[in-house]
């Protein structure tokens, strides 16, 4: 059955089911862009049309889901991308059986992490069978599936890992509560997992990857700790021979009313597995802005986060996070804390203060500092320092928000700065009108090849609630582009000049 026929069949099924006692729900996101590629010429208009329709039908313990996606650019190359994902799930405690497209994470993602990041257009799914059994505060997951990664970059959707690799995995987790009830909440979690991939597209003999892992966690009142260890072994991709790797993640945190503190430590040595540009696992990065160095191949670092509201009218958030490659010449402790000239790495330091002089008036001031080494090639070292301020005031029938940020960029070849001012006015449950102007004082040579020579980006956006279940956003103007990251995955966003329209609906 062709893709269109399948979709038609799903629609007919939906129509008939309206009469029956079947629950129907869904959502739709339609996106239309018309824009000019500023690096070519001003008459070179392009169009994008993206449609994602989700339908869900449920009857007693059975749920059927379908997602129809198509992306239709105006250019012949690379051409359109469309697919229909479906899932059938039977769920009745203590068993859940699912067949179709699904997402799953084992532990914190050291061994397997197939996830959907809709806000970043990064879709890592598995297609196959997944079963869950829940019993006596325990959960056992068994799965098999073919991975697929659809990623949006350079204004194009593409399938990054078009392989027939088969992933098989098992994940077990058990919770222990104290036998005698205490006033303090105490929970202990223990887990173990196994993943195997027979890499059928790798032509080396018996190409495979196996991952083992375990975790232990404690929650004792305000104190929360978690430790996860993973080990990888298998054959080296494309060249054969034995590959070994291991990874470790430790987090601990304290939380009291008005105060929160968390510390994270990571150490990955050949833990990331997948292929060029994609991973089947995604070991966590401590960097808040989502940057990783090489996604679990060679990384060591820490994250420290403090959030406090000492007064009802003020709160402060402080983050100090670092990740880098290893340098065996240094001690373990130095490798965690330092980034020397031989390392690639990221150091992120942020502070944000939010005050409410009155209930309806909020002032936010902050400073973000990001130092990157060997991340944004061809630049070796780059430091971005961004002070910013934001004022918002709620007048009841309408609200106003004014913001300003100034980013000093210093690199090993040139210095420049970006600054941006924004103004928003809105009415509750109706609309928000935002105006933003960004400017760069000059464009360094290494950036011209990536982003063009533009130095100003005015933009206006209208967000309109058509009904409570419909929202329409229209954005007109320019976006400067640059490196953006989420969850350790980065892409170079193309500069944009044109119109974007997005209609989202829930039904």
């Amino acid at each position, binding site marked *: 059955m062709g893709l269109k026929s399948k979709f038609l069949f799903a629609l007919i099924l939906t129509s008939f089911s309206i009469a029956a006692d079947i*629950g129907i729900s869904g959502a739709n996101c339609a996106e239309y862009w018309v824009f000019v590629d500023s690096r070519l010429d001003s008459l070179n208009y392009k169009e994008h049309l993206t449609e994602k329709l989700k339908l869900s039908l449920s009857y007693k313990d059975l749920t059927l889901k379908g997602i129809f996606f198509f992306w239709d650019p105006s250019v012949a190359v690379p051409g359109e991308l469309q697919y229909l994902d479906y899932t059938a799930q039977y769920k009745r405690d203590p068993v859940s059986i699912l067949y179709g497209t699904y997402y*799953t994470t084992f532990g914190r993602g050291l061994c397997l992490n197939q996830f959907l990041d809709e806000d970043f257009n990064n879709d890592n799914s598995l297609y196959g069978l997944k079963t869950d059994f829940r019993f006596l505060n325990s959960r056992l997951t068994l799965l098999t599936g073919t991975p697929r990664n659809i990623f949006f970059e350079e204004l194009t959707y593409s399938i990054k890992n078009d392989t027939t690799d088969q992933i098989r995995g098992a994940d077990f987790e058990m919770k222990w509560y104290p036998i005698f009830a205490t006033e303090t909440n105490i929970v202990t979690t223990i887990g173990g997992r196994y993943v195997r991939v027979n890499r059928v597209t790798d032509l080396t003999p018996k190409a495979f990857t196996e991952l083992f892992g375990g975790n232990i966690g404690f929650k004792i009142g305000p104190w929360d700790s978690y430790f996860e260890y993973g080990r990888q072994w298998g054959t080296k991709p494309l060249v054969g021979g034995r590959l070994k790797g291991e990874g470790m993640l430790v987090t601990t945190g304290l939380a009291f009313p008005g105060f929160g503190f968390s510390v994270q430590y990571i150490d990955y040595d050949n833990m990331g597995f997948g292929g060029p540009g994609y991973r089947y696992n995604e070991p966590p990065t401590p960097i808040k802005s989502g940057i990783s160095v090489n996604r679990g191949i060679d990384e060591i670092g820490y994250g420290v986060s403090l959030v406090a509201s000492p007064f009802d009218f003020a709160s402060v958030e402080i983050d100090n996070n670092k990740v880098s490659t290893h340098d065996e010449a240094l001690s373990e402790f130095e490798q965690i804390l330092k980034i020397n000239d031989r390392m690639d790495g990221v150091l992120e330091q942020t502070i944000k203060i939010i005050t409410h002089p009155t209930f309806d008036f909020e002032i936010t001031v902050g400073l973000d500092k990001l130092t990157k080494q060997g991340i944004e090639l061809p630049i070796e070292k780059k430091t971005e320092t961004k002070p910013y301020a934001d004022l918002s005031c709620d007048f009841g029938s309408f609200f106003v928000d004014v913001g300003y940020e100034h980013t000093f960029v210093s690199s090993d070849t040139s210095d420049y700065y970006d600054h941006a001012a924004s103004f928003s006015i809105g009415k*509750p449950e109706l609309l928000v009108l935002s105006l933003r102007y960004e400017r760069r004082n000059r464009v360094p040579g290494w950036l011209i090849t990536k982003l063009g020579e533009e130095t100003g980006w005015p933009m206006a956006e209208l967000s309109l609630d058509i*009904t*409570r279940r419909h*929202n329409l956003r229209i954005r007109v103007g320019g976006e400067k582009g640059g490196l953006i990251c989420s969850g*350790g995955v980065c892409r170079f966003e193309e500069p944009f000049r044109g119109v974007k329209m997005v209609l*989202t609906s829930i039904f």
Partner: protein
Amino acid sequence: MRKFVLIIMLPMLLVLADEGEAIDAPDFALEDVDGNTVCLDSLIQKGPVLMSFWALWCKMCIKELDALKPYANEFDSLNITLLAISQDKTRAVPKVKPFAMSHKWKYDVVLDPENTMRDLYHVQAMPTFFIIDQNKKIIFTHQGYKPGDEEIIISMVRELLAKGEEDGSEE
């Protein structure tokens, strides 16, 4: 062009046909930040359930939950549960409880690192707010947050409670 018409018309028809009609709330079981399991079935027996989808990176989500803080005691006294459903991925999970506690939220903060709830409730934008009545029907859905939207949420809750009282007195 045909595709464009399809994109515009199909969701409009589906939604307009459905506008105002309550939808069944799908069941779920999630873990809260203290490691306890939270189920819709058990919550609904106590009273209506409010759900706010939020994340650490979502400025407007945090504003919405902060704006609802003054009503937390009222919700509690009326057996209304407000679930703050964190959509943060596994890497950010350790920061969720410290953040929620530092903001003095008295809500049930639950974790959804695989975003199964986002899929189950077809959340398209952050934040998205739902009100579920005791018949397990979604009676209110709201995408996004603008200062002042909390007043609409509160008026919907009060309307729901008044309706419940009326139904009770009629019986």
